[in-house]
C-alpha cells in the first residue's frame, strides 16, 4: 500500500518550474531517498509534502488523504520533520525539545515524560544525564539524534528528512545512518529523505529517485539505478568506478546463499553484504565461506566464483 502518493505535482515560480510534473508512489514502511544536485527540486518535493511549500498543480496524498484537506499545522504535527543542522530550539532543554509536538497535541504530562524517556533510551542517551541539558551542551552527533527523536515524538507514520546528516563528519555520519536504519526497522515508519550524496542514498534507500532540473529522471531500487540507469545523469551520479563493488554492497549474503555446506574454516553472518563477504574471503585467502544466521544455524555457502558473478553487469 502506498503511504505517500505524489501525482503530477509541479511547483512554478513565474515561468520557472522548480518541480516539473513529478509522480511517485512511496510504499508504507520503506525509505525513499531523493537524490540530486542543489537546485534539482528535491527539497521542494519534500517541503510540498508537509506544505512548507505550496503545490502549484497536482495532488499529494498521505495515507490515502489529500494533504490539502487538512490545515497545514495539523498536517505537520502528524509527520516528523528533520532538517540539516537539526534546528533544535537553543533555549529549551533536550526533553522540552523532544516534547514539542506531543505538547502541541496536548498529550498528558505523564505520557509526554514517558515518551521522552523512551526516545532518549532508543537513541542511547541516558535520560538522567541528557534530558535537562541544553542543545549547545551536546556534541554534533547527539544533537542530530535529539533532532530525530523530536521528529518521532508523536509517533508519526511519515518522517521527512532534509539532508539530516549533512552537518556531521564522516564517522558520526555513518553511525547515524546505521542508527536510523535500526530505528526505521524497529518502528516501521515510512521515511522520505533528501540527500545530495549518492552513497548515502545507496546505504539507506529501499528506493531512490534521481532528480535533475525539477524532473525525476529515474525512480527505482538502488540496483535498478546502478545496473539499468535510465539517463546519463544517473550514471554520472553513481559514478562508473567500482560499480561492481557498489552492486555487491546492495546484496545480502542470505539472499544469495547456495544451500550447501562446504568444508571451509570461514563462517560469515547472513546479514553481511556480498561486498563484505568478498573482502573477508580476499583477506583470509579462502575460496569460499559458510553463511550462518544470528542463531548460529548454517544456511549454506558462498564461493568466490559466485560472488564475482553477482557483481557482473547485467
Amino acid at each position, binding site marked *: 500500500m502506498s503511504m505517500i502518493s505524489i501525482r503530477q505535482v509541479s511547483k512554478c515560480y513565474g515561468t520557472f518550474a522548480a518541480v516539473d510534473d513529478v509522480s511517485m508512489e512511496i510504499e508504507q514502511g520503506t525509505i525513499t531517498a531523493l537524490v540530486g544536485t542543489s537546485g534539482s527540486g528535491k527539497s521542494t518535493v519534500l517541503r510540498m509534502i*508537509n506544505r*512548507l511549500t505550496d503545490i502549484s498543480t497536482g495532488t499529494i496524498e498521505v495515507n490515502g488523504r489529500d494533504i490539502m484537506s487538512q490545515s*497545514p*499545522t*495539523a*498536517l*505537520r*504535527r502528524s509527520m516528523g*520533520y528533520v*532538517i*540539516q*543542522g*537539526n*534546528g*533544535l*530550539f*537553543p*533555549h529549551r532543554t533536550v526533553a522540552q525539545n523532544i516534547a*514539542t*509536538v506531543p505538547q*502541541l497535541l496536548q498529550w498528558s504530562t505523564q505520557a509526554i515524560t514517558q515518551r521522552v524517556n523512551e526516545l532518549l533510551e532508543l537513541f542511547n542517551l541516558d535520560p538522567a544525564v541528557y534530558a535537562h541539558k*541544553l*542543545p*549547545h551542551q551536546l556534541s*554534533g552527533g547527539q*544533537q542530530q539524534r535529539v*533532532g530525530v527523536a*523530536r*521528529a518521532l515524538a508523536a509517533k508519526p507514520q511519515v518522517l*521527512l528528512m532534509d539532508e539530516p546528516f549533512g*552537518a556531521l563528519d564522516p564517522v558520526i555520519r555513518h553511525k547515524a545512518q546505521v542508527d536510523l536504519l535500526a530505528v526505521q526497522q524497529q518502528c516501521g515508519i515510512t521515511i522520505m529523505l533528501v540527500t545530495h550524496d549518492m552513497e548515502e542514498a545507496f546505504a539507506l534507500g529501499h528506493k531512490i529517485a534521481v532528480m535533475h532540473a525539477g524532473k525525476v529522471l529515474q525512480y527505482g531500487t538502488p540496483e535498478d539505478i546502478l545496473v539499468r540507469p535510465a539517463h546519463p545523469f544517473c550514471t554520472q551520479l553513481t559514478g562508473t568506478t567500482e560499480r561492481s563493488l557498489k552492486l555487491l554492497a546492495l546484496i545480502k549474503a542470505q539472499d544469495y546463499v547456495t544451500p550447501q555446506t562446504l568444508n571451509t574454516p570461514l563462517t560469515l553472518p547472513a546479514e553481511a553484504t556480498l561486498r563484505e563477504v568478498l573482502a573477508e574471503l580476499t583477506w583470509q585467502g579462502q575460496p569460499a565461506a559458510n553463511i550462518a544466521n544470528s542463531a548460529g544455524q548454517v544456511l549454506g555457502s558462498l564461493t568466490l566464483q559466485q560472488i564475482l558473478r553477482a557483481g557482473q553487469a547485467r
Partner: protein
Amino acid sequence: MIRWSSFRLDRVSLLLVLIAGLSVVYAAFVTIKPNRIAKGESKYLVELLDQPSTWVLLGCLVVWAVVHLLSTRVRWRLLSANVALWVLLISIGVIATTFATKPIVRVTPSSAFWLLFGVLSLSITDSWVRLKLKPWYRLVVLGFYLLVGGGVLWSGVLDDLAIMREFYAREAKFWQEALRHLQLTLGALSVALLIGLPLGVWSFQVPALRQIVLQTLSLVQTIPSIALFGLLMAPLGWLAAQSTGAQALGISGIGAAPALVALVIYNLLPIVANTVIGLEGVAPAVRDAAKGMGLTRAQRLWQVDIPLAFPVILTGVRIVLVQGIGLVTVAALIGGGGFGTFVFQGLGQTSTDLVLLGALPIVGLAWVAAVILDALAESLTVTEQAA
C-alpha cells in the same frame, strides 16, 4: 624577596595613581562660600593638614596607591579602593561640619574631591569586572553599595555639605520630583514597548517596511531633544484647546504630556531596532524546524522568536532606560518636572549645589539601571548552538 621578573605594572593603575596624586597636590579639595551664591574660597588638601580626617584620608590613599602599584591581587585592590572611597566621603562630611559654622555658609566638594571620587570608583569597577561575577552576584554587589551609600547619607555625616543643605531646604519637593522623574522614564519605556515591540515584529516580517520605519526613527533621533519638546507644544496645545476629553486626560502644550510623547518618540528607535536585530539573529534552521513541526504563527512568535530575541531586546530596553533617565532632565524646561527642575533652577540662581542636587541622582539612577539590565540581559542569553 621580590622577583622582579614577575613584577608587571599595569598602565591603567599607574594612570589612576598619577591622577590621584596630582589632584591631591594641584587641585582644590573643598570650596567654602559665605552664602549659597557668593564666590568661595578654595582649600587644597595640603592646607587642611590640621584636620585629623585629612591624615586618615591621605593614609588610605597612600595604601591604595601602593597596593595598586605593587599588587595584582584583586581582593587587596578592591579592599583598599573601597576603604579609600568611604573614607573620602566621610572626611568631606567631617571637613564640611568643621567649616560650616553658620547655617548660611556653604561647603562644596571641589575638583580634587571629584577626581579622587572618579578615580576610586573606576578602580573599584575595574576590580569587580576582573572578578567576572555571575549576573545575580553583581546585583547583590549593587545592593551592597546602595545600602552602604544610603547608610552614609542617612547617618547625617554629610548633612553639613552644601548639597545636603539644598536637599533639606526642599526635601518634600525632592521626593516628588524623584517620583515624577521615574514615572516619566518608566512610563515612556512602557508606552515605547507597547508600540515598539509590535512595530519591530512587523518590520521584521515585512522587509520593505523595515527600511522606512528604521530610517524614519533614526531621523527623529537626530532632532535635538529641546527642539522636539518645542515642536510638540503646538500640536498638543491645539489638541487640548479643541477637545475637552484631551484636556481631562491632562494633555496640554506644556507639562508632562509633551514630555512623555517626546520621550516615547526617542525610545522607539532602540526598541524597534533591537527587536528587528534580535529576530534576525534567530537561526533560520530553528525557524524552519518550528514551522515544519506544526507550530502556528503565534506559537512560533511567542515560543521561539521572542524568547530567542529577548536578550537583544533587553539591551534595547537598557539603552532606552539609561538614555531616558538623562533625557527626562530636559523635560523640566517645558514644565514636565523631574530632577531637571533642580538643574534648571540651579542654573538660573547660579547655585552649583542645586544643580548637583538634580544631576547626581540622575547619574546614580542611570548607573543603577545600567547595572541591573546588563545583569538581566547576560543571565538570559542562551549560547547559540554550534553548526
